[in-house]
């Protein structure tokens, strides 16, 4: 059992060293996305595979929307009339669906990485 304290310390050190690699990401590209009448435009966003991409989202509706995608691992509330930015990790080529969680019927879109 005594080995557990050094083990915990080693784990903390590992966490600290992981912390040092945390830097503000340099996005290769950015895309704009607008929400209006609970619809995304454009509904299809093409991005280069393997690069970080920032998506600037502007919500033109009076009500809040949650930009939600488990494929992209992103969830973000954009208040009514507000903007926000999500940072996509480098993606493998493919299609990644996203949706507005508060208006799933109309707010649908897809990120295409190629």
């Amino acid at each position, binding site marked *: *059992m005594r080995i*557990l*304290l050094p*083990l*915990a310390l080693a*784990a*903390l050190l*590992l*966490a600290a060293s*992981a912390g040092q*690699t*945390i*830097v*503000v*990401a340099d*996005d290769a590209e950015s895309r704009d996305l607008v929400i209006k009448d609970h619809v995304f435009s454009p509904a299809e966003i093409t991005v280069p595979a393997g690069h*970080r991409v*920032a998506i*600037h989202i502007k919500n033109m509706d*009076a*009500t*809040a929307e*949650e930009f939600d995608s*488990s494929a992209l*691992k*992103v*969830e*973000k*509330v*954009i*208040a*009514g*009339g*507000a*903007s*926000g*930015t*999500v*940072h996509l*990790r*480098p993606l493998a080529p493919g299609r990644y669906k996203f949706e507005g*969680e*508060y208006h*799933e*019927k109309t707010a649908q879109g897809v990120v295409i990485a190629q």
Partner: protein
Amino acid sequence: MLAALLIVFREVIEAGLIIGIVLAATKGVVGRGRMVLLGIAAGVFGACLLAAGAGRLGAAFAGNGQEVFQAAVLAIATLMLAWHTIWMASHGRAIAQEMRALGGAVSDGRRPLAALGVVVAIAVLREGSEVVLFLYGIALSGGASGWGMVAGGALGIVAGGLVAALLYGGLIVIPVGRMLSLTGGLITLMAAGMAAQAVAFLQQAGFADALSAPVWNSAAVLSDESIAGRLAHSLVGYTAEPDGLQLLVYAVTLATIWGLARAVRPRTRPRTHPASRPRPAAAE
């Protein structure tokens, strides 16, 4: 109305599970009901504030204020859960001995109780602010269908509360000793899951770039969108496609809490099974 019910249900159930586990873990501790109610009240109040200030918060940190805020409150919740687990490990035997000497009466459960109250408040705050924003949006758009959706939302809250109550009911019928070590384990896993989720928010904000490639994809077995996937997410931090950094932080959090709890646990071995959770099975 059904859509509204489902959306609200999904949010409420996540906070509800956390409250259910906290209630089970503190069964028999004096003052826990007040602590949980206070936590819920503070969380609801905070959720309304957070919803009202969502626009301003979102604009902070170059449009990433929300992620920074979420990561910060998740980190606080992780620390509180860790503190509770470690505190219990170090005081467990002392409390048990005292109880044997004095014949009953819990002497002190207050410090970990406060920590758990904070965790409840944060859970309600996080999920509640989304419910408030969603329902407020419906109210703004108005109309007859609007009221149907508000009714759906209200039913969603009730349904989420019922599931939490079921979990609590299921946990407390387990024999107390085993139930407490089970909830202790769940709390540790929940802490690790919250730490990994905090990392995910920092990644989404673009603050954490290392090890961002997914390590596996188990969506075919348990998808993030399914209700079961969401339950597993709030309970143990499950995600179908974890990346390296999230896994690392998850493992480090688990190892740290477990290691520290072991390190502070009094050395002498109890004759029966190791009483990691010594709280009494006092009747409610």
